[in-house]
């Protein structure tokens, strides 16, 4: 690991965290975005639309050589010059040399992320050519000497007073910070620029093979001016912008503005093919197609889907990490989830080494991606690659390789830890303060103690009363349920027995491997997957149930990914995946159990937190709500119920505790605003995080797993019967 690079990164985080108005602005933006987007897609089938785009883009990627040839042929037939730039430097050199040859003094630019990627402005400056950004946001950051912090709204991190200050320097007089006034200043100052410039540079949202034309999707009108007034037009176009037909381009236009800004359509969509009339003659049109890592990305078995991106920026808009630290921390040139991946391929893995760990893995981006890209999985893969290149950290590596893979040793150490922690727990179930250099861990949340006796050691003594079992299920407890919250396992038995289901706890089960996988240690994850598949299928259960959605995803998805091309294990991994269910879903769907828990006289007010991996991984959110409402709870929805709580496993302990703490703060605000007595959830990790935060802040709201509440209902019912 590069120490200086890491220090710089930590400094950027610290600085962003110390700018509360940035966080406020990005949070407000995120809230407004969700509503605007929902309205924009009203009456449309987003899933169908994104499947269509994803499939089309897959096809483009596979046939890109043919499409590229078709595009080039058609563009050249219409009078355009097409240049294929293998690298950023090639693209810059071509454009700078063209400018020199044609005696270009100034260029006007409309917004182009590809030109940010190649640092074109610097290259032009070095060639003695002035460039003027004309997109309002781009002009602002050009004046500020910064880079975009968002792909669609480059200056979203800046505020009106800062803009007024920049504009005042340009005009030489004090400009007020009234936004319409600032926009007017930009209009007036930039207008002459289009007339004076000898060259206009644009990007393109699409390059259409069928016509050899490009399409620009814009709002301000500057791209229309920049592609009309100057004699020369250069379009810098990433190879991934190729689409086969006008229908395909239209499908993107139907989704892009809706998903980017919640607009049905941008003010302008401009279709340009060939050397159109300009002044007294014809325009000189150059199309520079940019590879710069795109072909490598297209060939990457694990990451190639990222090339399907249509650059809408939605993955940032919904990202809790982005909302907390902004795009100057969570990004390089391209930002947020897609930015992490593109940075690795376009700018180098070292530029992305920190960023791949900055993702908390909540999958909010995956849910809104208009090209159906599994961003989280690709980032996870890159984390493995960084882990292989730079190591996962000596301490972690030792724990994963030497300890976790050896179940007896790992569990033995957890038992030992339960004894060793006595001085700090003082016999309580909660650790409020840790001494010395561990104190940071309990500064903003309490931590649960490791149980005296893990679930596995209690199992034989937990009574099970099922006369004629409907099903026999194996319980995959996961480390937290087993060693930290064994009482949750007891409740699970009560609840499932009540529904005539017999439960077993296969003792050879080990950690699901996600902590190792998410830290980039694939080898350990594979070893654990094999151990767990063998353990869980051993008794041939009807189903395997889980109380932790991250474990659910491991058993349902990750084991198959890890062992998919292993002939010994692939089939078994598939069997385990098919039998695995989150327990809320199991009860609701397989046992029809929503109304089998009685209704209390005084219903408790409960709000529900959707765990990331339960909602966006396992696709479960209605089932636990049905169980809670069916058992007589008054359900009050919180704002942002499916926003991450900031746990993220080692994310909140070692990798990014400072960011995790802020995300937890947001969650606690939302919980409190409901005035509920209890917050329910279906994830021991979320329980640990949210309970820890609420306890540390001494809030009265209690935290419970849905299964615990159902078990309480059973207890109440029994009490009632005995009275």
């Amino acid at each position, binding site marked *: 690991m590069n120490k200086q690079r890491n220090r710089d990164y930590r400094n950027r985080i610290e600085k962003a965290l110390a700018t509360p108005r940035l966080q406020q*602005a990005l949070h*407000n933006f995120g809230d*407004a975005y969700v509503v605007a987007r929902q309205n924009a897609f009203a009456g449309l089938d987003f899933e169908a639309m994104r499947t269509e785009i994803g499939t089309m883009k897959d096809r483009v990627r596979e046939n890109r050589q043919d499409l590229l040839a078709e595009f080039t042929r058609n563009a050249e*037939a*219409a*009078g355009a010059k097409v240049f294929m730039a293998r690298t950023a430097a090639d693209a810059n050199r071509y454009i700078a040399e063209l400018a020199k040859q044609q005696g270009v003094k100034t260029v006007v630019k409309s917004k182009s992320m590809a030109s940010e990627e190649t640092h074109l402005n610097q290259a032009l400056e070095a060639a003695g050519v002035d460039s003027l950004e004309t997109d*309002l*946001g781009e002009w*602002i950051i050009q004046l500020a000497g910064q880079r975009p912090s968002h792909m669609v*709204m*480059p*200056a*979203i991190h*800046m*505020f*009106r007073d800062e803009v007024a200050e920049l504009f005042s320097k340009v005009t030489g007089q004090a400009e007020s910070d009234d*936004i*319409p006034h*600032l*926009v007017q200043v*930009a*209009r007036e100052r*930039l*207008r002459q620029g289009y007339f004076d410039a000898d060259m206009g540079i644009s990007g393109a949202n699409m390059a259409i093979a*069928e*016509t050899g*034309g490009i399409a620009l999707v814009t*709002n*301000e*009108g*500057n791209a*229309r*001016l920049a*592609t*009309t*007034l100057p004699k020369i037009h250069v379009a810098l176009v990433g190879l991934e912008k190729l689409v086969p037909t*006008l*229908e395909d381009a*239209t*499908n993107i*236009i*139907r989704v892009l503005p809706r998903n980017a*800004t919640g*607009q*049905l*359509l*941008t*003010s*302008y*969509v*401009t*279709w*340009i*093919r*060939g050397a*159109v*009339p*300009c*002044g007294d003659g*014809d325009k000189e049109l150059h199309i520079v197609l940019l590879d710069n890592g795109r072909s490598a990305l297209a060939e990457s078995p694990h990451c190639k889907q990222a090339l399907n991106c249509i650059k809408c920026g939605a993955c940032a808009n919904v990202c809790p990490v982005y909302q907390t630290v902004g795009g100057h921390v969570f990004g390089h040139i391209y930002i947020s989830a897609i930015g992490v991946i593109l940075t690795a391929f376009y700018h180098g893995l070292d530029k992305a080494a920190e960023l791949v760990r900055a993702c908390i893995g909540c999958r909010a981006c995956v849910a809104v991606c208009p090209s159906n890209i599994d961003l989280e999985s690709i980032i996870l893969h890159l984390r493995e690659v960084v882990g292989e290149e730079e190591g996962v950290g000596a301490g972690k590596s030792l724990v994963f390789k030497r300890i976790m893979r050896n179940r007896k040793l790992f569990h033995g150490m957890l038992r030992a830890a339960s004894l060793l922690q006595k001085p700090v727990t003082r016999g309580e179930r909660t650790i409020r303060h840790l001494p010395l250099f561990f104190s940071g861990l309990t500064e903003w949340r309490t931590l649960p103690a490791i149980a005296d006796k893990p679930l596995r050691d209690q199992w034989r003594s937990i009574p099970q009363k099922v006369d004629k079992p409907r099903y026999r299920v194996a319980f995959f407890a996961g480390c937290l349920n087993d060693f930290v919250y064994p009482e949750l396992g007891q409740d699970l038995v009560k609840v499932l027995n009540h529904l005539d289901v017999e439960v077993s706890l296969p003792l050879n089960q080990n950690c699901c491997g996600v902590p190792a996988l998410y830290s980039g240690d694939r080898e350990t994850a594979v070893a654990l997957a094999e151990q767990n598949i063998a353990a869980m299928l051993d008794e041939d259960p009807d189903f395997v149930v889980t109380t932790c959605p991250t474990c659910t995803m491991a058993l349902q998805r990750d084991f198959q990914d890890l062992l998919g091309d292993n002939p010994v294990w692939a089939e078994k991994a598939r069997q385990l995946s098919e039998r695995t269910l989150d327990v809320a879903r199991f009860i609701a769907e397989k046992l029809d159990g929503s109304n089998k828990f009685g209704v209390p006289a005084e219903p408790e007010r409960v709000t529900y937190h959707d765990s990331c991996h339960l909602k966006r991984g396992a696709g479960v959110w209605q089932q636990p709500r049905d169980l809670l409402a069916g058992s007589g709870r008054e359900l009050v929805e919180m704002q942002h119920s499916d926003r991450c709580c900031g746990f993220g496993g080692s994310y909140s302990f070692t990798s990014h505790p400072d960011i995790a703490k802020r995300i937890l703060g947001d969650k606690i605000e939302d919980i409190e605003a409901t005035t509920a007595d209890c917050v329910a959830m279906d994830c021991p990790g979320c329980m640990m995080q949210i309970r820890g935060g609420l306890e540390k802040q001494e809030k009265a709201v209690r935290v419970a797993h849905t299964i615990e509440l159902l078990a309480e209902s059973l207890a109440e019912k029994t009490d009632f019967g005995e009275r």
Partner: protein
Amino acid sequence: MLSGFIEALQKVGGQAREIETVQQAAAYIADRVKGSVLLPEQSSLDRAGLAKALDAAGLEVIRNGWRERSADAEGGVTGVNFALADTGTLVLDSTEEALRLTTTLPEKHFALLDPGKLVADSLAAVPYLRDFHARSPRNYLAYITGPSRTADIERVLTIGVHGPRELHVLLLPGLSDDFFEI
């Protein structure tokens, strides 16, 4: 479809007015523009005698020397090839530079549209788009949806950055039924 078009246009900040004669169009424009308007040659508007009507309404009509004179003109007047109902979008074949300048430089854009030239949405527009490409080897086709806008400072929506601040669509039946004529 027409009411859907008008509603969508108004939602994005455009104005719509149903009229019956070019004189009404000229009067509408003269009410909102002082001095001069840009009016490139366009067969549907020329056939309807719009230039004369604008002149009669007291406006100076600029019909050439775009680059030099566009800065003085407060308004630009164009026809429309056809429009998309669901988003309130005007489609203009702007391959002629004059049309581009007329729809980008002045503060106010007045577009005369025959309400018969509506299609449901952008998907229904694709066959026409393809035809435009087949008819001419070089194209600059514009979809215009409301006035120019930005939200680049603190996400505050502000109308009129580099393009027109106002977009007025004058719906005039009988103007043209040809999607390839502007």
